[in-house]
């Protein structure tokens, strides 16, 4: 049924939800009265049917047309295995079924079809601080929350000091939690969660809590969990956390597994699948492409060293911002440049064409592909947005085109110790992250 080294085996699991019916409203008084009298029976049928799926048959799962329109398949015939000690990420758009899958694995909701084998003690973290009661003190909530997450009392007794230490709220342990700031509450809640020691851990996006300082601690703790040989399933929207924490990632889309494989590849597929902006864009129709009768933008992309489109960039590798434009009317003042912004909307840098062969020269009509090469170990982790433009060199305010955030790519640090992070795994700020040469002069006393 299940191999010795398998922690989780999911076999043909399906989960249906029935969404509400459209309410019929009558527009006559008598119609409304009749409706009102009939409504209890109608309501009863409606609420009853919410969890009855006798009319759902096998064909529905294979039927892409899905004629039974009030049924949603949150999971469609999903099968996969997770080995013991594996850290697996699950990504996908909102509504792709990843949270449902996690809820099925953690027994919160039940599959309508299929079977799941789970070897070992399992704990799920769909939210931090489940069951926290505002009237109880910090100390009491640690015990309550800990047992809710599946710990035994003795276990909490043993780890209590550690939990409190990690949270940094020692002073307020005997204060009701309702007097805590939201930050303190989250820190205490996460500390309890972080000290869970199940064999299998299911996590849903709980890393996005607390202040920067605390997030650092959490991320470190999370990495520790992975290294301790525990099986972890991690659902997240944070692509850089997924690539960093998980070796393997499952991409879900409308209830099915779209791809299952190495994290960087899967994240790549996801980002290039059209969800959000991608690292490559082409304007096929010259009439509607950005620009005017002088210059038109035809394509823009981020490329790796060997010239391939690059959605996910290893922080250590160089990359090129490439644009392809057509000059329709020769000029000697055409100046390509880029604006690069980070996720917070901060301009990381502008880049102006400095190619000595063309700078200030006459550009005859034709097709130009120009690339700005960005050295490795310069950009900071995260998503970067690139806006290509061609402007006029003599008249500063003339832009032939400018497409803000035309493309985007992701910079990730694989944490192998040779980037600017060194062996530090926590959160790093900064718009850029250059790798410097450090020097120390030491003189003994």
């Amino acid at each position: 049924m299940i191999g010795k080294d398998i922690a989780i085996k999911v076999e043909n699991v399906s989960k249906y939800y029935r969404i509400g019916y459209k309410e019929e409203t009558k527009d006559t008084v008598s119609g409304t009265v009749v409706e009102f009298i009939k409504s209890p029976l109608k309501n009863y049928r409606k609420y009853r049917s919410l969890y009855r799926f006798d009319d759902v048959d096998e064909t529905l799962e294979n039927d892409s047309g899905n004629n039974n329109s009030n049924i949603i398949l949150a999971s469609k015939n999903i099968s996969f295995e997770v080995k013991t000690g594996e850290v697996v990420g699950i990504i996908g758009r909102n509504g792709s079924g990843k949270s449902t899958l996690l809820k099925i694995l953690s027994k919160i909701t039940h599959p309508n079809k299929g079977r799941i084998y789970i070897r070992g003690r399992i704990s799920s973290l769909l939210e931090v601080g489940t069951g926290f009661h505002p009237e109880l003190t910090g100390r009491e909530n640690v015990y309550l929350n800990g047992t809710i997450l599946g710990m035994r009392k003795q276990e909490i007794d043993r780890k209590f000091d550690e939990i409190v230490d990690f949270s940094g709220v020692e002073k307020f342990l005997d204060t009701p939690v309702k007097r805590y700031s939201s930050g303190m509450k989250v820190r205490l809640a996460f500390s309890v969660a972080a000290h869970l020691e199940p064999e299998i851990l299911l996590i849903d996006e709980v890393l996005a809590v607390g202040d920067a300082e605390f997030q650092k601690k959490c991320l470190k703790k999370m990495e520790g969990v992975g290294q301790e040989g525990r099986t972890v399933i991690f659902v997240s929207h944070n692509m850089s956390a997924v690539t960093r924490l998980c070796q393997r990632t499952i991409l879900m889309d409308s209830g099915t597994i779209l791809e299952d494989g190495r994290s960087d590849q899967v994240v790549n597929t996801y980002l290039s699948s059209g969800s959000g902006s991608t690292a490559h864009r082409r304007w096929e129709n010259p009439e509607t492409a950005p620009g005017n009768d002088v210059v038109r933008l035809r394509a823009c992309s981020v490329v790796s060293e060997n010239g391939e489109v690059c959605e996910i960039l290893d922080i250590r590798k160089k990359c090129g911002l490439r644009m392809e434009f057509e000059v329709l009317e020769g000029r000697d003042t055409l100046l390509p440049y880029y604006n690069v912004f980070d996720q917070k909307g901060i301009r990381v840098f502008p880049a102006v064409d400095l190619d000595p062969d063309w700078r200030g020269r006459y550009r005859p009509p034709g097709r130009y592909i120009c690339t700005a090469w960005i050295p490795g170990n310069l950009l900071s982790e995260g998503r970067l947005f690139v806006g290509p433009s061609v402007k006029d060199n003599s008249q500063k305010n003339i832009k032939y085109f400018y497409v803000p955030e035309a493309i985007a790519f992701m910079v990730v640090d694989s944490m192998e110790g040779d980037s600017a992070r060194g062996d530090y795994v926590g959160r790093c700020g900064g718009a850029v992250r250059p790798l410097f040469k450090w020097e120390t002069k030491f003189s003994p006393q």
Partner: protein
Amino acid sequence: MNDKQIISKGGMANVRVIEAKKGWKFLDFNELKEYRDLFYFLVWRNIKVLYAQTIMGFSWAILQPLFQIIIFTIIFGRVAKISSEGVPYFLFSTVAIIPWTYMSQAMTASSQSLVTGSGMLGKIYFPRLLFPITPVLSRLVDFGISLIIVVLVMLYYRVMPTWNLVFLPFLLIMMASIPVGIGLWLSALAIRYRDVKHAMPFVVRMLIYSAPIVYSASSIPETYRFFYSLNPIVGVIEGFRACMLGSPMPWIYIWPGIITAALMVVTGVFYFRRMEQIFADVI
């Protein structure tokens, strides 16, 4: 949930199976044992939180029934002059209202337990049975405190306890099983149909007249006595009175009630366990 422990020699120990299988299930004792610490903390939390930020604190456990006893004594004892079989009406209603207060509060809290706990229901798994059973246990603390009234009133009327008191533990179990049975059924219904929330207050108010709380059971014609005593509340109240006041134990009222109460609990567990799969989906 369809969660069973499979233990075999082929390395399948410690493997759980979650299956899409419908069916009737009874209690999963292994699982309940695993979660006993949580059960303890949930009960303890309910007790601790019940009177949080009140001036009177646990005095409410005494004040609430006390006022009801006083009002009932005035209305039914003095004004309506309902027979209390020679017992002072104040004493007569005290020994009935104390267990009634417990049962009515416990069944209301238990019926709403899944709805009030729906935040947890959708975020974490633990045996769903803990939801309706927790308030039934935590309310026992209130009940214990309110027994002080019974003791004081008995002292005032100089009623000596009799050997009938040995039946008290047994009656307490019967008393607690009623809100368990009702809570199992209604909590599972209430999560799907919120009508329960609106119906509960007046059903409880009506139920008080279905049992010999303001009147005595002997005023029910003998022909209907059996049907009347199928209501387990009747047995608990009459039994409680006999326990405290030393009248002969009214077994004819108690036995039918025990059967109904036991049936309610057993069918309640089956119904609850069958329905629990869908709780998280219908919140």
